[in-house]
């Protein structure tokens, strides 16, 4: 299963020295994120990815060990983002649709 960011381009993001406040117009909510959370959203906006791919990417970027514990913490954040409507699961069919659109 792959994940992608939802409407990332509509988010208003303010950088406070590697801490971020993010306004989400769809919900009208403001979120408070750290550097890794923002990087996760940026990555998922550019590349729909599986949990494993996201974890590998972030582990490399933040010099973490991509072990099971790291994977689980990323999964937790993903599900939190899903609840907030910031990311969604990309089903196989819609992935094909996306690919067709981009051709």
């Amino acid at each position: 299963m792959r994940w992608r960011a939802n409407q990332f381009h509509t988010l208003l993001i303010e950088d406070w020295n590697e801490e971020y406040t993010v306004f989400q117009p769809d919900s009208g909510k403001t979120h408070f994120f750290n550097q890794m959370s923002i990087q996760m959203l940026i990555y998922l906006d550019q590349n729909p990815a599986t949990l494993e791919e996201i974890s590998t990417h972030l582990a490399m970027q933040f010099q973490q060990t991509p072990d099971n514990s790291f994977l689980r913490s990323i999964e937790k954040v993903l599900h939190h983002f899903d609840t907030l409507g910031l990311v969604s699961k990309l089903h196989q069919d819609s992935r094909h649709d996306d690919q067709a659109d981009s051709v």
Partner: protein
Amino acid sequence: MMIKQIPYKEFHRLLLNQGLRVAIGPFNVCVQTAYAPLAEQLYKLYCHYRLVQDEIAEFHVRIVTERLYKNPFRQNVRFLLDGQSPFNSFPPEQALAVLEWGINLAIAVRVNHLLILHSAVVEKNGHAILFPAWPGSGKTTLCTVLCYRGFRLLSDEFGLMDPRRRLFLPIPRLMPLKNESIAVIRSYLPEIVMGQSIPNTQKGTVAHVRPPEQSLLQSEHTAKAKWIIFPKWIAGSPAKIEAISDSEAFMLLASNAFNYEVLGATGFMAVADLIRSCDCYKLVYSDFDNVMDVLHKLINEA
């Protein structure tokens, strides 16, 4: 013309009939009541406010008396905003507190062209200082001391920010001291004019301080904020001010606003701009002289 320039008889007649139209910061409020004890208190405490003639009033408020169904020999008072009653009725001795809460409610729920922060605001040397805080943190008490010791009062309750111009609009109102603060302020500032103590309200005993005349005379002078200070009164604590991160200040400020979510992206951008243009601190204090020293030092170093 100021209220003190009209005789009490005329003041009372306005309250009884077409309503007393008074400028409270950027709003005009039309007050009506036939309850004479309230009229007497208002004449004393509202004396420096400007009377409004031939201007539209944003809020029409009334204090009416009503007999209790269960005890027809007793009267209560009820607050009406544009004819609607947002509260239960209250004992008549609480009329002033109910009127003041009602006007605050009207501003908090009806005004959405301005960002309304839950914050005291004073001005010094042309710069606004915000003191955002939750109820019970002593912001009204601190604000009362500051505005009678050389700072200009913009508000003890509402940080009214024009989100386009990034300016704070004054809305100087009566400052409701609560419980122990009443005696503390009477002792520290014996020269101020304060209304009667009103016991047994929802917030305990309340007494209203009349805002300084100079602050009311300058209530059309807006100011840009330079400092955001989150105050907390802690018994026996020496005055201590500590810088906080911008991100923490953002979240504290946004979560402490009346209409931040209603304004959406406008509110977000306004708070972000405000934080970027201010130095943000947390302040704990217990002694007014100490806290004044700390604030003067901060201002003089700027």
